């Protein structure tokens, strides 16, 4: 299913991630999933929040450059080859490129993991997931 991701531009310096987390804590927003990709100079913190719109507001208020993007999330079986067979292969077969993804386990149910990813064609990717009935 479609899910909102909040991403934040963050300089690769000590205390910056802390500042993001503090803004969220102040507004009592909880993080479901978090991934940070980085270069030597800067990073992009990507987050799935329980309240993305309020999260965006809180971060903006603290002066962060931030944005919301639609992502797809999928529940996959927590077994070897789970990600490969439920997401990677079907997407490749449909000619969909995944720009990035991250995963988390727990909270989702036993023997289940959750992946969040950004396909280059969200409509098409959503169709693929539906046909496989992993779209959660």
């Amino acid at each position, binding site marked *: 299913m479609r899910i909102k991701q909040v*991403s934040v531009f963050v*300089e690769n310096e000590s205390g910056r991630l802390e500042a993001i987390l503090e803004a969220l804590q102040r507004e009592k927003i909880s993080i479901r999933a978090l991934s940070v990709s980085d*270069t030597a100079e800067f990073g992009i913190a990507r987050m799935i929040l329980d309240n993305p719109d309020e999260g965006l507001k809180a971060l903006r208020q603290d002066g*962060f450059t*931030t944005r919301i993007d639609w992502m797809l999330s999928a529940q996959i079986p927590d077994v070897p080859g789970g990600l490969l067979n439920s997401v990677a292969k079907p997407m490749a077969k449909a000619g969909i490129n995944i*720009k990035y993804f991250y995963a988390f386990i727990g909270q989702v149910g036993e023997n289940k993991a959750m992946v969040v990813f950004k396909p280059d064609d969200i409509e098409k990717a959503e169709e693929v997931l539906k046909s496989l009935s992993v779209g959660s």
Partner: protein
Amino acid sequence: MIRDPEHETMPRPELEKLQLERLKVKVREVYDRVPFYRRAFKEKGVTPDDIQTLADLTKLPFTSKLDFRDNYPYGLMAVPLEQAVRIHSSSGTTGKPIIVPYTQGDVDTWAEVMARTLATAGTTKDDVLQNAYGYGLFTGGLGFHDGAERLGALVIPTSSGNTKRQILLLQDLGTTVITCTPSYALILHETARDMGIDLRDTRLRLGVLGAEPWSEQMREDIEERLGIMAINVYGLTEVIGPGVSVECPHKCGMHIAEDHFLVEAIDPETGEQLPYGEAGELVVTTLTKEAQPVIRFRTRDIISLNPEPCECGRTMVRMSRVTGRSDDMLIVRGVNVFPSQIESVLLDVEGVEPHYLIVVDRQHAFKSDELEIWVEVSEGVFSDEMQKMEGLEKRLRSEMDSVLGIAARIKLVEPRTIERTEGKAKRVIDRSEL
């Protein structure tokens, strides 16, 4: 040769009398005819009647490049547009070009000061003068052209560029004087060398070079490689173009055409006039310009003035080579970098905010200067995809390279990382201050 001994060797008291007469006329003119000056005079609480001695000049307000921009295109004119016969322009460093109209009288005055300039540099009517300054809106081309013709020299109007043809003509037509920028003189040398030609073997004997800052080392280099005497010439579009000052063959400062241009050196911070000999910003008031006279124009060029008569017999004040700019031009690895150029690159990229900081790292004695540009990442350019962010960085880097001519590192920073200041932003810092 002294072309106009009456003016060029005038005893200073007489010269100052002439300057005062002309100043009074110009001040009255701009006050009566140019709303910008009338307003500026009123703000300073000064009227034309307050100008009774040359020392009263300091009562008048300054004019800056900004005023040209704000009054673009014709707002500073003191005659109706119909009386103008020509426009020249300089690109300026920000936004709108600077427009300078000339009456027929101005064109004549200019040709005369340029003839004087060329004569001072050592040109005669028997010379074959190849003018490789660009023809067009730039004042260099037509300024030198008209002056050389007025002097009676044979002019080859090659304009700039097409270097191989320049060298061919220089050889075949027996060019004796080249007029161009110092850096182009070196390009001529290199190209000639590549063509198997040694310029020292040609009839070329003199270069009248200017329109960009250059050093004594560069002069020595040019003189050695081209086998010529290299003479420094100075001028500004806002004031007239080339023709403001030039060296004589003694090469001990540039003689200012003081019967046309009244000069001062000021402290660029306080605006106070400085005594002779002290380094300060050159300020020029035109004494004879008709279409667009300028009062106390701040050139931003740092010079010093020397009133001692020269060995050549001229009594006009000499100005030193321009040793720097009082505005925020940076010299990084020998290349002039204007913060405004950086700003224009940033503004060309959609969504980028003009909040930037230029960090120059000169602390390594054995390493060349590093230029780093901090750019704040606004929501307009922020992407959740790393590839796009790196693409932005790459794009800015390559745009900077092509505009600045030197490589700069781009550092993307969080909003408000860069200190905001009231008024003029601090755009440049040295690494050691961080």
